[in-house]
């Protein structure tokens, strides 16, 4: 059974300076509110892990929480660049950001390996690219039966896994549906896990296409309505495409970004 607690309490207990933190949600159900709480609590030196950093990591990086980023596609979907991520990589602002870059297939399989308690995953990946030259986390591996050479990537085993979901019951069983990304794998790969949900209900009614993650494998569940905004929660609210477009302007300028974080995050009330 996962304790149903507050977001503030959960982040305080689960996320420490220097931790590796994976926050998943593939466009859908991105745990923005949890990211804001990490910024508010001033966590530092984090290794941030995520297939698509999206706005949530642009904010964490711009706020100086991150030492390192592990990712596979760092853009603003449908809009363009993540300006804070670029500023950190290109100009070391507000601090240098080490990066480890993978492909989507590589990242997805690294989560699978982590969730499966294996030290590595095997895929037909990265072939013919220069990604392998940039990272020690991409290595050739031979098939013991055919002799064929494939690619191995190490398992992701984050200290903390964070996702947002639609619902939980009072025992902390979590239900999510719609696009599922690599959320389940992220949680199951992590040593500690936090799920924010739109609502806590008495009974989880079955939903077509839905999955349930039992509360007993989770560290904490917190009710945070609209906790994915400006991402979306299928069945609850749509993606705020306008905010994604606006973010480009906000994040383009260091001062405007900082003012936005002060106003919308540090004040305790994120833009909803």
């Amino acid at each position, binding site marked *: 059974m996962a304790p149903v607690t507050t977001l503030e309490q959960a982040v305080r207990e689960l996320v420490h300076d220097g931790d590796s933190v994976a926050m998943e949600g593939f466009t859908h159900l991105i745990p923005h509110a949890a990211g804001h709480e990490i910024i508010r609590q001033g966590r530092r030196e984090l290794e941030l892990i995520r297939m698509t950093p999206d706005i949530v990591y642009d904010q964490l990086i711009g706020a100086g929480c991150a030492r390192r980023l592990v990712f596979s*596609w760092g853009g603003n979907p*449908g809009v363009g660049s993540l300006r804070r991520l670029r500023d950190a990589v290109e100009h070391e602002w507000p601090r240098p950001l080490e990066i480890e870059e993978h492909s*989507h297939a590589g990242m997805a399989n690294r989560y699978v390996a982590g969730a499966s308690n294996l030290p590595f995953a095997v895929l037909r*990946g990265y*072939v*013919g690219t220069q990604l392998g030259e940039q990272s020690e986390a991409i290595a050739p591996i031979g098939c013991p039966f055919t002799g064929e050479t494939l690619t191995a990537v190490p398992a992701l085993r984050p200290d903390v896994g964070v996702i947002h979901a639609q619902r939980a019951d009072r025992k902390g069983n979590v239900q999510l549906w719609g696009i*599922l*990304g690599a959320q389940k*794998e992220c949680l199951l790969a992590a040593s500690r896990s936090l799920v924010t949900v739109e609502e806590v209900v008495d009974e989880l009614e079955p939903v077509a296409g839905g999955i349930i993650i039992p509360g007993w494998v989770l560290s904490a569940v917190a009710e945070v309505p609209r906790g994915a905004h400006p991402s*979306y929660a299928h069945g609850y609210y749509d993606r705020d495409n306008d905010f994604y477009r606006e973010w480009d302007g906000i994040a383009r300028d260091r001062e405007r970004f900082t003012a936005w974080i002060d106003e919308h995050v540090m004040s305790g009330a994120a833009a909803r």
Partner: protein
Amino acid sequence: MSEKGAAATVAPATSDELQTVTAARELADGAVCFVGIGLPSKAANLARLTGSPDTVLIYESGTIGAKPTRLPLSIGDGELAETADSVVSVPEIFNYWLQAGRIDVGFLGAAQIDRYANLNSTVIGDYDDPKVRLPGGGGAPEIAAMARELIVIINQSTRSFVERVDFLSALGTGHEPRARLGLPGKGPRVVITDLGVLRPDHETGELVLVRTHPGVTVEQVREATGWELRVADDVSETDPPTDDELRVLRALEAAS
């Protein structure tokens, strides 16, 4: 589908629309397409809604057989899940579907392309000290490797059509590396730009200009290319989008 007397109301195609329509026409009916957001998504949906109703759209967010009525801004929009035959996890879409060789056509864009259609979507400048940090490869490395063939869509200028890409994010047409690496597909089958259409030479894999868009000269395309461009003996002109194509495309966009 053209309504009588309505043809005159259709405004001329923009360059973006021309590219989209050109890409849509490249899809055979029933083709299983692995599409990214933006122009590829537009093109595949346009194909599905015009001549190729059985085109299967797979988005890397895990939606198989999505049939969106409006164009998603992001690759994981709810519309895709609601209209899909099946929604699977991201690990599954890459392992059981892309890697398994079930994709007929992948769409890719890039910031840079070379004469063998090698693509760079990672950095401009040095990897460790980049001039511009681009979003990165995302799904592209494996899409380029595992799809049967690729459609590349990219605007053409000497900044994007370069002698040598700054970073190799996704493999192009090269026969030698594809054979050596044991890749199942042939790589890019066509490159569609805002100026024209290029296809690889069957023997060498080098891109050859085979078509120019209406109003574009071969010379203009040469000038927008950072290497000495090969040009086919018989360069034709792209058929302009029909009124039907434009109407369907604009209806899709208006609904977004």
